Each structure stands twice: as C-alpha cells, then as structure tokens.
C-alpha cells in the first residue's frame, strides 16, 4: 500500500540520542536539494550505511539528473544501521527518505544501486523496513515502481524478483526517461502491468517479470530467460551507453556530508571505461568503450567543485585514471591552479609502471602515504593468462621509481584461485613482494630507520558474468586455505606483510554471481536468518548463509566452484553490456594458451563487439602513454 507523503522526522528525532552515529539520519547537508516540489517523486537508495553510500558517484549523477528534470524531484535513502532499524521496527516507524523525511513507501519511483553482490540482503531489509512488498509480483497497483541499476547488474537474476525494472549501463539519460515514462503512464491511468510494458521499451531497461526462466539441456542448472510471448520484450536487453561523455556534467557531487565518510573528498570522473582487457575484470568488460573527459573540463570542474563544496581533497576517479591521454598535463595544470590552498589531489589506483609512479608523484605533491600496485598474479605466465599486460621489469621499475621518489610503503594486490594457477604461481607472490622490499632497501638503505615496508593483499578470485572467465569455477575454500598457508609460510621478513581475504565471504559472492533467478530464495532465507550488511567483516555471518542454503537443499561450495560449459546458455545471456559472447569465448581460449590481447585504445580494435553493437566509439583526446 502506498503510504501518504508527509514529513515524519518527528518519529525519528526521539530515536537519535539512542543510536550510534546519529548524523547518518540528519539530512540538511550542504548541497542537498531540500526543496522537493515534485509532483513526481523519486528516491535513490544505496542499500548500505550512510557513510558507505553517500560518496557513491553514481547516485550523485542520477540525483543531479533527476532534480534537474522538469516536474521531477529526487531524494536519497540509506539503510539504517542495526540499532536504528531495531528501534524503528519496535516503534513502527517506516523507513524514511532523507530530504523530506517522507516514507519511502510514499514515492512514485524507488531506485536501488547494485554496487556488488553482497548488498543482496540489504535490499530485502530496505524494502521490508519501508513496508514495500519485497517481491515485485506482490506489489499493489499504486505501490512504488522499484528499479535498480549500477555496476553489479550483470547477473541480476538472483535479485530480479525484487525489481519491477533494472537499468543496464549508464544511467544519466536513462533515469530521466524512466521517471518520465512512469509519470506519464500514471497520469494516463495505466495499470502497473502496462507501466512495466512501457518501461521495457526503453533501451537498456530489463523488466524481469516479462521473462520466463527455462532450464533445459542447453543451459546450466540455473537456466536462461526468454521473453514471455505477447510482451514484445527484447530477447536480449542491451545496455545504455552515453556516447558523448563530455556532454555530461563534469562535477556531479554537490552534497557535503557532516560525518566522516568512506571517501571524504570531491570526486571528478575523468573517464569512463577501460580497454586493457584484464580477463577477470567485470568493470573492464562492461563499461566499454573508453570515453575520456577532456582535460579542460576536468580542470574547470575541479576548481568549481572545490569552491562549491569546500573539500580540501580532490580525487580524479575512473577505472584507470593514469591511462587518460592528458593525465600528465592535467595534473600539472591542477597543481598550478590549486597550489597554496592546502588541497590534495589523489588518483585512486596506480598503473603498474614508471609512468604510473610519475603520475602519483605529480598528484600527491609532498605527501607520501602508501603506494598501491596491482600485479594481480605472481608469475609472468599467469599474468599472461589473465591478460594483465605488465612484466616483471614494469613492477621492478615502478617500485624503484616509487622508492626514489620518497615512498616508503608499497602495497601490492594479488589474486588467488585464478584459472590455471599452480603452487608455483602462489609461491611467486611472496617472492615478488620480497623483491620489491629488496629494491626499497637498495634505494633507501637497510637500517631500521629506512622504514621500507611492503605488504601484499591477496583476494580470492570470483568469476563474474560477462568476463572471459565467466565459465570458470571458483577455488574451493579448503584449497584457498591450503594455498594461503603456502603463501604465509613463505614470508621470511618482518617488513613484509601478507594477508588474504576471508574465503567464505568470497564464497557467498561467488555463489550469487553464478546463480540464476532461483538464487533469490537463498537471499531471502539468509535475510530471514538475520543476514544483512554482509560486506562488513564485522557483520558477515557465514553460518547463517550456510544454514539458509541447506534449508533450500543448496550447497554453497558446489554452486560457487561449478564451471560452466563454453556453449551453455547462461543465466545472464539476456542482459548484455554489448560485449559479444564470441569475443569472450575467444578470450577464454587465448587465456588457456597464455596468449595476451592488446588494449584497443593503444592498438587497433580487438573486436569485443561493443562499439558496433551500441553505435559508439572510444573517445581519446590525445596519444595514450
């Protein structure tokens, strides 16, 4: 039932002294759009705690786009922490949006960000707290239309039963079309069913209820989705893609939170997409093609954004900022314009070569925190398998350059459980880490005072949809632990720290990455057993997930570790980022042979299929270094 739109802050206010971090629930931040005249009301939900969700750039972009559209207003909502949620349930307070403090269940349109697989139970919790029926099929005619979008839509099936529609790909234009479509259809008195049909005609919009899941001999055990007869829903929904990235607002962040949040700084998106072609990387495949924002725009937006928000840190974000063809002049220009104001510029990840270090150096001024590199695998053989096109020499040169420029702490990211991995590959991780330490000692000196430290963080590889490794099975927990012991046992130096991620969190992530629509029952059962905030190490409860799986007759390890046949129909074949299956299969075969594939922004097109499928092109303003 749609609740009335009214300001219910008076119900939350008495709870504020009773919860930790009341500033999660205050609203009224600088830059928030407090006037919400509507008449069409949308609310964007990041289903995690405020401090995790508020820095999300995607939400900022869509918030801006919707609030800028005629007759449409847009608010934000985050998932209350346990303490607040318990109090709200106890006192029958429904979940409220921030700006108007109106119930989420009073909105016309509610949009969730799918940031990763482990938000699954948080979405159930959000809907339940709001009093919106969790399953789309149970919603009444006038209930909010509940949609989702974001980086983790590429196997949307285990969450699909909760959504009336799911947007694939870039949202800035599509979200306004979606809102306008719902508004117009409502105004015309359309039924819910007809609203969903209308939504399915917008490019990039997937309406799960218009598809049946079929399991047969051509599919995996999770089946594949086919459009229901008579709905004219497309067989394959192709993602939305903004061809002219430079025409989108360069500075999307305007809200300045009160509380210390995860990334407490101004973010400017300097480019979208990455064509390096790492075979494990879902973002690299699903955000293609590469579209750079021209340097002048970045510089102007940075200055304006800093003045508007008052931030003293600027982050130039993207999947691979140092690949921007104007990266060096852009950093120089920013340095010149921002000097003397106590402003820090940061770039999120360093490219693993000398150029990457030069750029980190240009960005950070005199400040030297830790420097991070991601070789991902220990041996050249395995790096070729995953198409991480860096060499031993790249790593060594980058490390030397970093120590020479004054860095003392270097952090290396690796993965474990990659296809074809052997114990030799594992043992090469501590070896590479020690080599970097040795280079540091050569450059800086061996004494205690040199303070050279190298750490390696090893994540468990999780195969993801729309990557060349989507057919791979995940390494079993027991084997992860054996390899982890090898890894830790090979560490012989106090100044080297090696750590690895909890394989059980990865196991749940892996299972949800593989399952089809039937996976929703697992999510629901886990939520009923109290699972939420699963991405928080402190909150993750594997036993509850395991019990939930058992209750349904599932075995999480065998789901995650199952490999798929190369020609099987997959649960996500009908929701496509434009990368062709033929390309992914070819990449899978090349991986097996250890053959690498070049970057199409530096070499010629390698035929991934995105550009012809979507009618777009790479947009690169200069020569890439």
């Amino acid at each position, binding site marked *: 039932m749609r609740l009335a739109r009214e300001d219910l*802050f008076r119900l939350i*206010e*008495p709870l*504020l*002294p009773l919860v930790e971090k*009341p*500033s999660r629930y*205050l*609203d*009224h*931040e*600088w830059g928030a759009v407090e006037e919400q005249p509507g008449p069409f009301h949308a609310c964007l939900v990041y289903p995690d705690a405020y401090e995790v969700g508020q820095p999300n750039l995607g939400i900022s972009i869509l918030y801006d786009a919707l609030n800028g559209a005629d007759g449409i207003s847009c608010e934000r909502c985050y998932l209350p922490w346990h303490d607040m949620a318990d109090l709200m349930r106890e006192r029958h307070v429904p979940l409220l949006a921030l700006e108007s403090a109106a119930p989420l269940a009073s909105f016309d349109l509610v949009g969730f960000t799918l940031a990763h697989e482990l938000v699954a139970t948080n979405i159930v919790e959000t809907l339940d707290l709001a009093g919106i029926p969790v399953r789309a099929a149970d919603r009444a005619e006038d209930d909010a239309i509940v949609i989702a979008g974001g980086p983790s839509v590429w196997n949307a099936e285990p969450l699909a039963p909760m959504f009336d529609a799911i947007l694939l790909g870039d949202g800035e234009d599509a979200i306004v079309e979606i809102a306008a479509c719902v508004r117009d259809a409502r105004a015309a008195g359309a039924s819910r069913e007809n609203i969903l049909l209308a939504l399915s005609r917008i490019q990039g919009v997937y309406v799960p209820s218009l598809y049946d899941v079929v399991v047969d001999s051509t599919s995996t055990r999770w089946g594949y989705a086919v459009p229901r007869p008579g709905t004219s829903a497309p067989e394959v929904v192709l993602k939305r893609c903004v061809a002219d990235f430079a025409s989108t607002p360069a500075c999307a962040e305007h809200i*300045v939170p*009160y*509380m*210390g949040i995860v990334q*407490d700084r101004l973010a400017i998106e300097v480019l979208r997409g990455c064509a390096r072609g790492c075979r494990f990387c879902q973002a690299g495949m699903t955000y293609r093609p590469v579209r750079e924002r021209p340097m002048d725009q970045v510089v102007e937006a940075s200055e304006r954004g*800093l*003045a*508007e*928000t*008052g*931030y*003293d840190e600027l982050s130039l974000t993207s999947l691979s900022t140092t690949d921007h063809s104007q990266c060096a002049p852009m950093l120089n220009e920013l340095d010149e314009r921002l000097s*003397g*104001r*106590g402003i820090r510029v940061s770039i999120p990840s360093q490219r693993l070569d000398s150029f990457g270090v030069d750029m980190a150096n240009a960005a950070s001024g*005199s*400040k030297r925190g830790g420097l991070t590199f991601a070789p991902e695998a220990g041996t050249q053989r395995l790096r070729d398998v995953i198409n991480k096109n860096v060499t031993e020499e790249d790593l060594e040169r980058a490390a030397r350059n970093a120590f020479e420029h004054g860095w003392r702490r270097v952090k290396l990211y690796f993965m474990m459980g990659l296809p074809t991995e052997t114990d030799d590959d594992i043992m090469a991780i501590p070896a590479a880490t020690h080599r970097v330490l040795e280079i540091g000692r050569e450059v800086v000196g061996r004494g205690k005072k040199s303070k050279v430290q190298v750490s390696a963080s090893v994540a468990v590889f999780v195969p993801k949809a729309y990557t060349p490794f989507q057919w791979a099975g995940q390494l079993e927990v027991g084997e992860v632990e054996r390899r982890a012991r090898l890894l830790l046992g090979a560490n012989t130096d106090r100044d080297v720290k090696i750590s690895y991620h909890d394989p059980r969190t990865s196991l749940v992530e892996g299972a949800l990455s593989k399952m089809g629509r039937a996976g929703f029952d697992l999510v629901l059962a886990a939520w009923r057993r109290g699972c939420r905030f699963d991405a928080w190490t402190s909150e993750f409860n594997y036993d509850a997930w395991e019990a939930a799986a058992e209750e349904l007759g599932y075995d999480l390890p065998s789901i995650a570790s199952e490999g798929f046949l190369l020609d099987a129909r997959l649960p996500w074949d009908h929701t496509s980022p434009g990368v062709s299956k033929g390309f992914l299969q070819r990449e899978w075969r090349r991986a097996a042979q250890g053959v690498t594939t070049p970057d199409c922004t530096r070499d010629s097109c390698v035929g991934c299929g995105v550009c012809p499928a979507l009618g777009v092109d790479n947009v690169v303003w200069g020569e890439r270094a």
Partner: protein
Amino acid sequence: MINTVAITNSKLNQYRLRVRYRKDGRLAHLGHLEVINTINRSVRRSQLPFAVGNGFARRMRLQFSQALPVGAASLGEYFDLFLTEEMDPKAALERLAASSPTLLAPMAAGYVPYGLPALEAWLTRSTWSVNVIDETSVEALSQGIDAVRARGSLTYLRGEKEKHVDLGRTLVSCEVRPSGNGFLLDCRSTEEGSLRPAILIGAAAREEGLAMPALSVCRVAQWHEDEDGSLVEPM
C-alpha cells in the same frame, strides 16, 4: 563589545577573527569532529583569506571552543579563524553565513588579540539550560542534585573508564528554571576536567531511584573567568 579593528601579529601578518555560532535543531546531534569538519568546509566555501599552517598537512588555522556533547545544542559556540588579510568583520560574517548550514549559522564576528591563549583553554565558564522532556519530576531530580552536590564529587563511567569530577570546583550553581521544566547550570572547566550536564542529571536520577530522563541540553553562553573570578565576554 565586538572589535572591528584587528590587532595583527606583525611577524606573520595574520589576524585573529573570532566567530560566535549556534548549533541548533537536528544538527545538535553532530559530534565535535563533525562540527569541526563542517566549519572547515564552510570557511573554504566562503573564500575568506584564511591562513594555512606550516605543518606537513598544511591545515587551515582554525581553533574551536570545548567540545559540545553529541545531542547538545548551543547558542554560544566559538571558533577563531586566522586570516591573512584584514577585512571588515561584518563582511566576513556575511560571507561565512552564506556558506554555512543554517543550523550552524555564525551570528557575530570580531577581531581579538592575536596572542590570546587557545580558545579551548581560555573559555572556562559556561551556562547550560537543561530541560527535562519526559514525565520525570524536576523536583525529585532537584533533590537528587542536592544530594549529589552534598557529597562534593561525582564518579561515573565513560566507556570502560571510571571518571571523577569535583563538583565543588566544576559546578558553580544550579537552579530550577522559572518555568519549572528543567535547570540552569553554571559550570567551570578545570584542568582536571569539566562537568557534563547529562552526567549530573544522570547521577541525580540514580540517587532518587529514577531512570535517566530524556533531556534537551543547550549551552547558552561561554565566558573566560579571570583570576579575580570576574567573567569576560569572549568577543
């Protein structure tokens, strides 16, 4: 009286602008660090010619009065901002007001001598209004306060740690408000610590066998206490 003429530190050529601001409404729930961060950004947005420290991190030169407890409002909070140019304090106030959240609005600004001690240490006296907003009897609490005061000191737990406050030194006076719905406290902070109004009321409630009442706490004013005990206005 508000000073409109700056006394500069000739060596650095910096001017110390003191600003009084309020912390009101729902923003009473901000923690001290959150207030500091927010004001820092308000100053940056105002584009006032703020001074930056020489330290490694090149931070803005900004000082605050003593932390307010989370949940407490205030009509008299202060910060000192060091400027590199002397500008009309009225104009500075206007710019600050335009760049601050309304519930943390600056209300007055004036220059103070550059060399005064740090604000936090200098503002040693404060007046608090404490309203009881549930059914708890103010009269009973008043008796509880008398009993606690008679013992001279108060012990309470802060996290795991046991803390002591000397009530003789830190609680100057405590009166029931004329409306009868709460108290007016006059407190002094000493080197050993200061008294938080909610701690006193909590102890009084325990004394009377009552549950902790729901309170609305507001710091009404702050002063510097001179050696002779007289109160000096911060501005």
